[in-house]
């Protein structure tokens, strides 16, 4: 029987070292923080101590970038053991990673590379998710990544792949609204079709972030504020999803905390309006 990912409704922020002192010394008005799992999957020292102290004050979500769930040669067992260890310590709200791959034949790109939307890839991803969830002893969430290339031979679209993946493995979904927008612009699909196509009852968390505009392509850089189009898409998403956890994700050019808190407040306002619209 599948494990079920937990539910949580609230607004959070990615914990980055520039704001450690804020989170340790003051009461930041948020409902949870999300950390990059790998930054704390170390043997000891200050990073683990900071995570322990932050966890005493806030619920924590563990968000990974290195599981490589789409690898055709399976998962790294040592990685899973380390992730299990930190998850047992932290007792996180969620453990999440991306629908992507980074590792093949001992090589690790350290990037979120795209998975082809084929039956063969879906079977492989589902086998890997089953293994990960069994080793971690909990249901995971998987995020839709931004992508810059679409492969020939796809037999389904991204949201169909995500829906089947979630149904077959019991995993939850982490909906990154900026990634939907970036991929929709890069590949020419309708982002609203994506939002309508994923199973709303499987979404447990939403990411909001900024992107950069390159020559003929959008790039998911997480170094900008959330743009107006993505805020608008977020409003649509929240009217479809109902109350789920939302967080602001900034990884580069980190501004003062107040700027990010303004984005958290914006997300709260939009989610509240969307809920009212849904009720009306």
């Amino acid at each position, binding site marked *: 029987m599948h494990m079920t990912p937990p539910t949580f409704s609230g607004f959070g922020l990615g914990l980055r070292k520039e704001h450690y002192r804020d989170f340790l010394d003051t009461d930041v008005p948020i409902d949870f923080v999300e950390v990059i799992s*790998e930054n704390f999957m170390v043997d000891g020292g200050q990073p683990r101590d900071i995570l322990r102290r932050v966890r005493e004050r806030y619920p924590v979500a563990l968000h990974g970038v290195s599981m490589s769930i789409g690898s055709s040669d399976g998962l790294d067992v040592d990685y899973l053991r380390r992730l299990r260890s930190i998850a047992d310590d932290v007792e996180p709200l969620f453990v999440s990673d991306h629908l992507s791959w980074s590792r093949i034949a001992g090589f690790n790109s350290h990037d979120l590379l795209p998975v082809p939307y084929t039956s063969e890839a879906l079977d492989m991803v589902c086998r890997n998710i089953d293994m990960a969830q069994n080793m971690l002893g909990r249901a995971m969430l998987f995020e839709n990544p931004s992508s810059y290339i679409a492969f020939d031979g796809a037999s389904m679209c991204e949201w169909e792949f995500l829906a089947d993946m979630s149904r077959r493995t019991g995993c939850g979904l982490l909906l990154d609204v900026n990634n939907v927008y970036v991929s929709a612009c890069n590949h020419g699909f309708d982002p609203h079709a994506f939002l309508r196509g994923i199973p709303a009852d499987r979404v447990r968390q939403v990411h909001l972030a900024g992107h950069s505009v390159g020559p003929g392509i959008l790039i998911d850089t997480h170094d900008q504020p959330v743009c107006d189009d993505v805020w608008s898409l977020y409003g649509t998403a929240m009217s479809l999803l109902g109350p789920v956890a939302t967080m602001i994700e900034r990884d580069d050019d980190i501004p003062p905390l107040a700027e990010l808190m303004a984005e958290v407040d914006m997300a709260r306002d939009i989610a509240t309006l969307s809920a009212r619209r849904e009720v009306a």
Partner: protein
Amino acid sequence: MNLAELQHGFRSSLMDTDDAATGIFGASAATGLAVYRNNYRAQLVACLEVSYPQVRRWLGDEAFREAAISHIVSHPPHAWTLDHYGRDFSDTLIAMYPRNPDLQELAWIEWSLSEAFVAADAPKLVDDALWNVDWDVARLRLTPSLRLRPATTNADDLWLALDGDTDVPQGSMLDAPGGFVVWRKGFSSQLKRVDATDFDALAGLRDDPSFAALCEKLVERRGEEDGVRRAGELLAEWLAAGIVTGIDG
């Protein structure tokens, strides 16, 4: 093309600079693949810059970037964590600068300080740890963060000056070889250069952690009275510094 073939092809397109590998995904994929290829290299260069800030300052931006690119070509990443990527960077520096032992030792210092920062925690020494110790059988527990290397240059002076943004001395050979000791005290990585006798004494504890063996080694070098006295002094120093974190027996 099945999934494994696609992923092997993608790997080649990231690592190779020619267009042959990218061709397998068609012309329409060129712009997207260029983004992934740029991400791959930029991330690894940034990783080395973060891991070796003082080596970068010592070499200069242009020379460091040249070394980083050479390293990325010859050492593709394997580990699940980027934190390990710079581990072999000193091999690249040795190949590019074979006559600069100061640079090689500077790189070792910088990497070891990073490793020590996240090494496993050692249990705190209990207050009565030295009571009722039978010194004939006592074994010293070293901190898991300890890193040792023979020293032939003043690379520690270079690192301290670069890190402190003070006048950087010329790299030079030491009058007599010694050793570098890197470890973590609390949450702070530490660096110290010691003479050859003290270095051998500390390094010897990795093979035989007994206090008796430490005394024997120092007695060989310094004679009975001075050797035993020095063993006591070193033990006190290492306990205070957090290099020795416990005594069994």
